[in-house]
Structures are given as structure tokens and as C-alpha cells.
């Protein structure tokens, strides 16, 4: 493999020299230049994040050259430009003429002090000279330098590859020129040169057509993709890269790409090995500055495989090294990574860092980023700050103002990497404020709009959140479809694959619990309980569902224990306020269910208080609903009605079908209670309100497939009909009840069979 020059580059140089010699007609020039510059331009100038079009393949084939040239006429009448291209290509008859070709390129460069005193018609003035610093000038100079420093063996390789490159046009050239393709002193007089020409040469077996530089470029592109999206390359790409890099002179970047690949594939040993190998090989070339980056990568790797204590040690060393080497960028990166770790794995990290250091380091990071004008780090630290505020139950307005700042930074400095997390944080806020449709649209924005510039795991989280919202609304089909759509994206990525499957199970479990399919839920629950989770969100979800499951299966003592455990754990870890409120609510539900309404009321009141302070509106509604229910059970129907009527209208926009159904049912109960205390018309009005509320509750539970609530509703309505003396209707509802019950039990059976 040559360092830089390839037959393709020689082909491009031929085009450049044609352009320089003034052989191109005016309307061909634009196309030619586009063709050349696309392949020649320095890749470092294209830093846009939205590189939707891949960089042009640096290799060209001779057919492409001809295709480019054939539509245009050449200065020679009756000949098209492709004749010129062929002529140029086949005028290189030996290593020596290749050498001469490179020498002749010098003539295309503009030298200061050049005076054009030739007559205006001479060929020399038709020539286009390139400045040294123009893109084509740079290309020519680079090619010449590279050719100069080539050893003879490499020249032979280039020459053979070049012959293989142009071999497909041999016939065409013979037809066009009417001469044998190889002519001149070399081919005619020597029988033995046939040996050098043919004996050792088969076009198909010629050396690879890629230079080290090409391979490096493609590896860099690959690495950029891997780092940005956190994915693995598709199988075909991996195979191609493997073929490219299976040469002794392959760049060391190969190992870095392999490291990422192994990391994402979940192969810790290979990843570790390849990371070390990469930095061992770059040590000889690179300065010591690579060391801290190596450590940073190592710490990331170890966190991903759950080796927290080692990761922290490595991370601390990274920070120390970065401070020592005054590498601000690396320091900031490691600090923000540390920050991320603190939030993501509080349990493992708490022991390692001093309390309060989180905020301090965040503050430090912000100051540093502002000083160093590192906008992307500033933006992500602001985002982190907002997230911390939210999780500690601090002010939503402050969080929103921080987010606007982030948004401004992102737009001003084009920090595409943070768009997605910005949208997701906003969606969280909207979720807490109970604006379901906005939450949903931010999620959709994230995975429809920003998936091109965000890491795959972020997109995956957005999709999962969206699916869970659909699940809450009872739109199971949409939820399933969303999740199955992302299946292909996570193939081969161990962590994400696990995450997705766990999430799928969680949603399924939720649905089963709504459907009161305890048996099937038991199986999934058992499976979920034995899996290890690193993600705190997932851990929490599993724990809550476990409690719900225990309550549904009337296993109250265990449920109580589980709630207590979870509560303690959250207290230790200084957990998210939302999670703590949720636990309180579960506790209140439990107390209510086991017939201790007074205790339940206190807990619900606490929950409502916390939820109100942290603006966790859905939790607040639920707490208020619970309080209303307890009021009803304590025969304070009027208070229950007033509470429910205060929260119900807002709940309807919250997108939680289960909560709505529950609240309507409670409202029905409250009206029923009221009707008991009333007489005459007021009683009849209350009863009709009962019917109405139950109807609404039934509609929501039908959506969820919650047949138990539906049956309960029918039974209650039967009672209303009997109170009103409408016996026909009572009969009818009784029949309906039986029919639904039968249907439901049959469904349950088939579902259980399916799960089994």
C-alpha cells in the first residue's frame, strides 16, 4: 500500500493537467472541477455535523473518467474529450514516463515572478497556472512530494496498479488510435519486456488501489460515525474495512475503530485490548497528550461494563493528568463525564466523591467553559444543571430558563450534539407539568428530527418514552409499533439491545397488570426481577411494577416491604423527587386497599404536598384522587366530589387513561354517596351523574382493556338502575355483565397460554 498516491489519484492528476493545459471546453470545466475537487478537497474543511452525504469515494475508475469526459467535444475536431483522456492515460508507457508525468506537473504551478511575454495565441497562454495554495495547486504539490519520496519498489507497485486501473480501456484505445496500446521504444523492441509486462502482471491480481491516506480517511469517517451515534458499523462496511486494513502498513487508527466496535458489541476483553494496542502504537508518533484521552476512554469502557470502582480510579487519574498537562479540553470532557456518572449511577459514585462536589464541579465546569469559549461543554453543563434542578424538585421556571439559554447557545454555535438532550429535557418538564401532548411531540421531535445528530441510545430513549406514553393512553398498537421500528437500529449493540428488550417487557407487564392477567404478569415479573440493571430509571420502573403486581395479587405484606425497601433506597441515594412521590402514592394506595384509610390519607396528603411543590402535576392529581376516595370511604362525599371536580378537568389532558378511569370511578362513588343523602330531584340528578361518570370511566378502561373496572362499572350501574326502579335495564346490565365476564375470562386464558 502506498502512502498517498493511487492510480485514482494519477487519473485525477491527468484530469487536472488537461484542465491546466486548456484542453477543456468551457462548459466541461465546471463538471470536471466538481469531479476533481469532490475527491481532492481536504476533508478537514468539512466539519458540518449534517454530513448527510458521505464523503465521495476517493477511488475512481477509469470508466468514471470516460463517462465524465465523453459528452464534451475536444479541441480536436471530430474527437470527444474521452479520446484526450485515453490519450493522456496511454501516453504513460513505462515507469519512466510516469516519472516524467509527475515532473511535468511542476509546469502547472504558478511561480511568482512569472512573466507572460509570449504572444497571446501561443499555447502557453492558454494554460491555466495554479497558485501554490489553491486546492488544485496543493493537490499537485502533495502528489509531487509524495512521488519524490517514494522508493523504487513503491513506484513499481504504483505503476502496476496504474496499469490495472487503465487496463479496461485498452481495447477502446486501440480502436480509437489504431495503434497497439503499448508502443514506443519500450514495447516494440523487447521480447523480454513481455516478461516484465505480462509474466508478472495480471490486472486482477494487482496491488490494492488504496493508499494509506485513503484508508485513514475512511477510518476517520467511520470513527466519527461510531463516536457520534454510538453504533456499530453494518456488517458489509465492517467486512470492507477489514479487507482494507489487512495490510502490514495499515494505520493504527484501525485498532481504535476495532475498540469501538468491540465495546459496542459488548466484548469487553477485545475492546480493552484494542484500546491499549492503539495507544501503544500511537505513543511513538503522538505526544504524551494522548495518554489522558486513553484514560478517559478506558473509564468510559469500564463504566459500561459495570466496573465502577476501577472506572473512578481511572477517571481521577485522567483529571489529574489533564490538569498536569493543562489540557483544558480533556479536563472539561472528563469533568462533564464525571458529572454524568454522578447523576446516572449515584449509588456507585456516592462513595467515591465527596458530597456537594457535584454542584461545585458543575460550577467549575461552567466557568471554565465560559472562559475557554467551549460552547458545547457550556451547553451540556447547563443542561445538566437543569436536570439536577428537576430531580431535586427545584424550580421548574429556573429549569426552563436554563433550557432557553441552552437553546440559544445551541443555535448560535451550531452545537447539534445537544439538540436532542435539550428536546428530551423539555419533554420531561412537560411530562411533569402534565402536558401529555407536548411531551409526546418533543419525543417525536427527538427521534424524527434529531436522530441524525444524536447518539443512538438517546434516540432509543426518546422512542421508549414515546411508546410508554402511548401505552398510558391505551394505544398499545402504536406503542408496539414504535418499539418494533427501532429493532433494526440496535442489532449488535449489546447494551441498547438489553435496554430495548427490558423496556418492551416493562410495557407488556404494565399492560398485563391493567388487564388483570396476574398469571402472565407473574412470569414476566419473575424474569425481570432476576436481570441485573445498571440504569436507575429501569431499576425504579421494575421496582414500582413489582409493587403494583404484588398489590394486584393481594400480597400486601410483601408489597409493603417492597415499598419500604424502595423508599429507603431512594432516601440513601438522594433520589429523584418524582420517584419518591411515586413511592408515597403506592404506599397510600396500599393503606387504602388494606382498609386503613386514615393512614393512607396522611401519606396521600404528603405525596400531594411534595408533588405540588415540585410541580409534579400527574402525581398531584393521583394523590388528590386518592384523598377523595378516602373521603368517600369516610362518607365525606361532598369533600370528595369537590376535590375530584377540581382535578379531573386537568387530568383529562394528562394522557393517563388509567388515572382518568380511576378518578371518574371515584367521582361516581362520590355522587352515589351524595345521592344517598339526598331526596327527590336532586337524588335523581346525582344518580344520573353517577351513571355518566361510570360511563366515562368505562370508556377509559375499555381503552386500556381493563375489564375489571368495566365489570365494576356495570355492576354499579346495575345498582343505580335498581335504585331508580328500572328493572328491565337491570336485567339487561346483568346479562351484559355475564357476557363480559365470560369473554374476559376466555381472553385471560388465551393470553396466559400465549405468555406461557
Amino acid at each position, binding site marked *: 500500500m502506498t502512502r498517498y498516491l493511487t492510480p485514482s489519484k494519477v487519473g485525477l492528476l491527468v484530469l487536472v493537467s488537461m484542465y491546466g493545459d486548456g484542453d477543456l471546453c468551457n462548459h466541461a470545466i465546471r463538471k470536471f472541477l466538481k469531479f476533481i475537487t469532490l475527491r481532492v478537497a481536504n476533508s478537514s474543511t468539512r466539519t458540518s455535523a449534517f454530513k448527510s452525504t458521505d464523503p465521495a469515494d476517493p477511488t475512481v475508475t477509469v470508466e468514471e473518467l470516460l463517462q465524465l469526459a465523453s459528452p464534451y467535444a475536444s479541441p480536436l475536431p471530430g474527437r470527444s474529450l474521452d479520446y484526450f483522456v485515453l490519450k493522456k492515460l496511454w501516453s504513460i*508507457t*513505462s*515507469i*519512466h*514516463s510516469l*516519472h516524467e508525468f509527475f515532473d511535468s506537473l511542476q509546469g502547472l504551478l504558478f511561480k511568482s515572478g512569472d512573466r507572460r511575454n509570449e504572444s497571446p495565441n501561443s499555447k502557453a497562454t492558454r494554460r491555466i497556472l495554479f497558485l501554490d495554495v489553491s486546492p488544485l495547486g496543493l493537490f499537485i504539490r502533495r502528489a509531487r512530494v509524495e512521488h*519524490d519520496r517514494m522508493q*523504487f*519498489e513503491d513506484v*513499481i507497485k504504483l*505503476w502496476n496498479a496504474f496499469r490495472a486501473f487503465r487496463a479496461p480501456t485498452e481495447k477502446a484505445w486501440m480502436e480509437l488510435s489504431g495503434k497497439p496500446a503499448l508502443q*514506443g*521504444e*519500450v514495447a516494440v*523492441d*523487447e*521480447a*523480454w*519486456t513481455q*516478461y*516484465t509486462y505480462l*509474466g*508478472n502482471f495480471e490486472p486482477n491480481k494487482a496491488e490494492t488501489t488504496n493508499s494509506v491516506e485513503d484508508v485513514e480517511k475512511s477510518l476517520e469517517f467511520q470513527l466519527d460515525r461510531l463516536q457520534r451515534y454510538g453504533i456499530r458499523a453494518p456488517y458489509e462496511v465492517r467486512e470492507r474495512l477489514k479487507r482494507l486494513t489487512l495490510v502490514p502498513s495499515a494505520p493504527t487508527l484501525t485498532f481504535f475503530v476495532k475498540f469501538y466496535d468491540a465495546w459496542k458489541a459488548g466484548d469487553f476483553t477485545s475492546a480493552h485490548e484494542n484500546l491499549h494496542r492503539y495507544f501503544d502504537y500511537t505513543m511513538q508518533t503522538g505526544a504524551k497528550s494522548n495518554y489522558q484521552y486513553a484514560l478517559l476512554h478506558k473509564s468510559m469502557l469500564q463504566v459500561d461494563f459495570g466496573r465502577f470502582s476501577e472506572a473512578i480510579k481511572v477517571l481521577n487519574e485522567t483529571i489529574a493528568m489533564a490538569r498536569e498537562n493543562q489540557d483544558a479540553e480533556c479536563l472539561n470532557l472528563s469533568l462533564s463525564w464525571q458529572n454524568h456518572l454522578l447523576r446516572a449511577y449515584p449509588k456507585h459514585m456516592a462513595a467515591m466523591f465527596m458530597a456537594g462536589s457535584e454542584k461545585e464541579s458543575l460550577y467549575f465546569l461552567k466557568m471554565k467553559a465560559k472562559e475557554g469559549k467551549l460552547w458545547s461543554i457550556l451547553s451540556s453543563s447547563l443542561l445538566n444543571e437543569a436536570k439536577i434542578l428537576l430531580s431535586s424538585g427545584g424550580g421548574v421556571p429556573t429549569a426552563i430558563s436554563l433550557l432557553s439559554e441552552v437553546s440559544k447557545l445551541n443555535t448560535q454555535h451550531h452545537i447539534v450534539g445537544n439538540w436532542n438532550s435539550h428536546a428530551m429535557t423539555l419533554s420531561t418538564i412537560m411530562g411533569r407539568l402534565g402536558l401529555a401532548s407536548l411531551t409526546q411531540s418533543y419525543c417525536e421531535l427527538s427521534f424524527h428530527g434529531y436522530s441524525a445528530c444524536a447518539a443512538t441510545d438517546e434516540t432509543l430513549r426518546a422512542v421508549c418514552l414515546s411508546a410508554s406514553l402511548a401505552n398510558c393512553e391505551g394505544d398499545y398498537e402504536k406503542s408496539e409499533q414504535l418499539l418494533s421500528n427501532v429493532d433494526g437500529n440496535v442489532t449488535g449493540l449489546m447494551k441498547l439491545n438489553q435496554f430495548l428488550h427490558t423496556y418492551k417487557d416493562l410495557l407488556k407487564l404494565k399492560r398485563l397488570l391493567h388487564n388483570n392477567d396476574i398469571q402472565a404478569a407473574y412470569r414476566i415479573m419473575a424474569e425481570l426481577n432476576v436481570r441485573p440493571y445498571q440504569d436507575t430509571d429501569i431499576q425504579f420502573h421494575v421496582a414500582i411494577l413489582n409493587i403494583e403486581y404484588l398489590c394486584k395479587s393481594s400480597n400486601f405484606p410483601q408489597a409493603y416491604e417492597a415499598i419500604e425497601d424502595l423508599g429507603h433506597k431512594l432516601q440513601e441515594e438522594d433520589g429523584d423527587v418524582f420517584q419518591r412521590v411515586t413511592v408515597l402514592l403506592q404506599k397510600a394506595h396500599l393503606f387504602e386497599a388494606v382498609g386503613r384509610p386514615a393512614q393512607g390519607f396522611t401519606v396521600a396528603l404528603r405525596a400531594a404536598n411534595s408533588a405540588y411543590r415540585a410541580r409534579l402535576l400527574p402525581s398531584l392529581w393521583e394523590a388528590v384522587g386518592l384523598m377523595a376516595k378516602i373521603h368517600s370511604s369516610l362518607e365525606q362525599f361532598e369533600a370528595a366530589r369537590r376535590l375530584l371536580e377540581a382535578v379531573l378537568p386537568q387530568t383529562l389532558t394528562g394522557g393517563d387513561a388509567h388515572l382518568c378511569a380511576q378518578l371518574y370511578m371515584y367521582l361516581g362513588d362520590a355522587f352515589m354517596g351524595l345521592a344517598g343523602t339526598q331526596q327527590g330531584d336532586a337524588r335523581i340528578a346525582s344518580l344520573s351523574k353517577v351513571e355518566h361518570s361510570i360511563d366515562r370511566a368505562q370508556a377509559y378502561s375499555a381503552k386500556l382493556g381493563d375489564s375489571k373496572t368495566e365489570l365494576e362499572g356495570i355492576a354499579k350501574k346495575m345498582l343505580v338502575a335498581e335504585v331508580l326502579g328500572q328493572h328491565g335495564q337491570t336485567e339487561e346490565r346483568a346479562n351484559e355483565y355475564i357476557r363480559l365476564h365470560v369473554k374476559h375470562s376466555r381472553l385471560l386464558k388465551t393470553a396466559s397460554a400465549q405468555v406461557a
Partner: protein
Amino acid sequence: MSLTPTQRADLERNLAHAVTGCSERGLYHGAKWAAELLNSLPEGEHSITDPPPAPDAHLERRELPRFLLAKALFDSREYDRAAAVFLPRPPPPPAPHPVPPTPPQPPLSALSKKAVFLALYAKYLAGEKRKDEESEMVLGPADGPLTPNKDLVMLSNTLEGLLTSYYAAGSNGDGWLEYLYGVFLAKGKNETQAKEWLIKSARLRPFHWGVWQELTALTANAEELQQSIAALPENVMTFIFHVFANQEQMRFNAHVHTALTQLLALFPQSPFLKSQRALLYYHSNDYEEAAAVFNDILRSNPFRLDSLDCYSNVLYVLGHRAKLSNIAQCAALIDKFRPETCCIIGNYYSIMSEHEKAVMYFRRALTLDRTFLSAWTLMGLEYIEMKNTHAALEAYRRAVDVNRRDYRAWYGMGQIYEILEMHAYGLYYYQRAAALRPFDPKMWMAVGASFARGGKLSNAIRAYKRALVAGSYQKKMGGSAAELRASGGALDPDTLYEVAKLYERVGDRREARAFMELVIAQEESHPTDNDATFGVGVTPNTSKARMWLAKFHYAAGDYNAANELATQLCQDGFDVEEAKALQRDIRARIEAM
């Protein structure tokens, strides 16, 4: 000349036995050469028999296992170990603790001669290898004659004793040991004795090519060659030696060509002999012919790299760049790490004026083989191009140390001293070169120029005249201009002009005039000559001569002649202004008369 069946059978048998003998003793080059020659005989019946048993065959049989071990080690280039199989160990230093005594090795005289040869040769090669390793970098501080082969004296003494004992017993060293001793002596610069022993060896083993090669290297001039040949038996190998030595000494007269033609009739396929022919052409500056012969060799032996570097020299002189690049490619494909290949690539880069790269490849060639003569010379040339006179001087000096008959190196050193303006020194080297190439006018011109700069004008004139003679292939030594004119043939006008100028400096205006007239005479062709030589036409030097003559006539008062010459000058277009001024003066004088 053709062979009778018996002669042919003899020749075949001898060559085949030489191949086996050489391979058994690790003399790869000799084996290769003999086998090549064996295969270049015309088609015919083969009747190769087994070699007769050696006189000490019983010894050979007894030590066969050890010999096989030694040979295997030798082939895997573990020379020291191979030598240790047979050679007695040096006595151990007095140890503080008594060590268990090693089993005593038999003395060398108890071994077969084959084993002795292999052991000593292996030891010698081990020393050479160490020497190369200690020399480190090419042209580095440790590189040069000061780094000796430390084993040489010991080996030489051992072998001397052994051979004396053999001869005292009425036996001999079987030819091989004599050769080895000759090599040792030659390495120790003991050349006369070395030659004696080599001739002894050549008598015993005429088909071992290494002997002849060493002999050639030790033969400095024609007289010595004659002496050697007189002492040698008359056989085909002596004949080949005669041709080879003459070629190496760059004698290319018809006699050598005839001898070579006769040899080629015996061995029509031999690439070695063909390359000798090409080299003869090359020495006589007949480059096209040489190229044709080399081409022919390449066609029949496409994988043979030997002497391909000479072909590249020929192409270099001819300026066939494309072809040179092809040869380089071809050679690099066959073997990148042969000194020949590196030389060819170096030549290619030299012709492309990429001197740094050329030097790199020549250095590589020398790293591969420090005795590769042409690489030293060519590297010197490159260093001159790069204006690195010290390195150039050292490279040339090394070339001369390897082979004292390399006139290019001598000439190059002369050039360097000329660049450094140390003419007295330069003269010495030019004289060495001229002595090696007495018929090359370039050498004599260089000598003449050096003499002229040193103020030895009469010597300079003699040297220039020598150049003129050499240039016209005349045996007869010319004295005056009239004699030279009488000898006929084309002469080099530049040299003539130099001679004329020198005569003027001496003050001999009559001779100067005669030579100036000769210069002008070279402009026209000489239809009277047998080989119709063409005139050189008007050149700056002939014009200068004409101007000189015009002024001469003007000063002598011969205005008509002066006017005629001045008019010619105006027509020729050189120095027109001066000629016109002269014309005006002449007219004024004529009118004044």
C-alpha cells in the same frame, strides 16, 4: 573449433565434478559458474560419470556424519559453529577451578582435506562476517581497511603449516586448499605468493572458477598476465582466463575478440561469455553493440541479474531512460536486495538527476556487498554531483582499494582535486588513469590540462599530442604538426586549439600557427580518407583559431590573408564585432599603403 566426442565428454565430466566439488565446499559462486558453463555446451549426448574417489576417501567416510553436520551449519550460515565441528578449540585459560577436561580434538592433519577446507573456509567467512559487522555503516567511521579480519593471520599460519606438511609428504592440498591459501595471502596483500599458490591450484583444479577470478584480480597489467599464462597449462580454462583478464584490464583488441568468438563456438549458450563480449564493446565505447548483446542475454536468461548493472551503465551512457526504468523494474521484481539491482535503480535515479536517492541505492548496494566495485565508483560520481567532494573522494578511494585497475575512480579523484584546485595532486591521479587507459584521449587531455595549469608546458603539449594520437587511433607518436597532418585522420579541434595556445605560451608562434591551421582544417571533411570522416563544421574554437590566425597575419603584415579570414569570421557569425573592427583596421592599413 569444435570438440571431439572424447574431449566433450572430458569437459562435461570435469565441469560436473567441479560443480559437485564446489558445492561440497560451500563455494556457491564457483558451482554456479561451472554449472552454467556445463549447460551452455551445444546439444548432445551426456556422459557424466561419478568423480573418482579422493585419495583420503577412507578418512572422508569415517568423518561423514560430522562433515554432514558441518555442511548443514555452513549452509545455514552458522560459520563459527560449522568451523568448530572440526577445528580444535583454543586451549582454555587457566581456570581457578579445575574444569572437566574436554575430549581432545584430532589434529587437523588427521582430517580429510575436504573437512579441513570446509572448516577453515567457515572460520574465514565467520571472520569476514564479523569484520562487516564491525565496519558498521557504509562510509562510517569504522568502515575501511582499518577494520581487519582478525582470524586471517591464524588461519593463514595454520594452513601454511598444513600445506607444508602435505608437500613434504609428497602429497598436495588437492587444489582446494591451495586456492584457500591463495585467497588468504591475497587478503593479506601478499600478492606474489598468492599468485604462486593460485597457479598451483589452477593446475590441480582448473575448472574451479574462483581460482581464475582471484588470479585476474591479482594481475595488474599485460606483462603479468603473460607471465601467468606462461606458467599455466594450456586448456580451455586458461583460454577463458585469458579473455576474462583482458576484458577486466579493458583491452579490447581484435585478438581478444577472436579468442572470445572461438570460445563462444564451444559454449554457444554461455551468458557469461556473451556478457564478456558486451563488456568488451562497452570498454571500446561501442555502446549500441554492447546494449544489443546484453539485450540478447536478457532475452535468453530473463532471471539472470549478474552483470545486469553493466547493462544499466550502457543504457545510462546511451540515455535510454525508459529502458533503464524497465530494467530496474525487472530487476527489482526478481530480487530487491541484490547489489546489482540496487546499482541499476541508483543509475536510474542518477540519470533522472535525483542524486540523493541514487546515493541511497548505491549505499544499499554496498551494505549488501562492500566489494561491489561499480557501486563505489558510481557513488563517487553522485557525490561529485552533490558537491560533496570529501565523500566522493572517500568513495573513489574505496573503489581503488577494491580494484586498483578502475580508471574511472582514478579519473574521478583527479577531477575532485581539480575542483579543489590542487592540480599537482590531480595530475597524479590523471596519470594513473591514463596509464590504465592509454588509448583514451579524455585521460590524456586531463593530464595535459593539469600539466598546463602547473606550468609544465612542454609536458602539457606532449600529453595533448598523446590525446590527439589516441583520438585518431594512431600508433605512431606524432611530434610536429606536419607529422600529425601527414598521419591523416580526423583530429579533435579542441585539443588542437589547446596545443596551439600552449605553443603560443611557449613562444613558438610557428608551431602555433600550424596547429591553428589544423584546427580550421577540421571544419571540413576529409574525402581522401579511407573511412570518410566528417568535419566538425564551424565551432567556437575553430572561430577562435581563425581570429587568432587573422590577427597573426595582420601582425605579420599579410593583410590579404588577414582580410580573407576576417571576412570568413563575419560570415560564420562568431565574434562578428571584433572581426568587423579587424576588417576596418585592415582596410585602413591597405589604404594607407
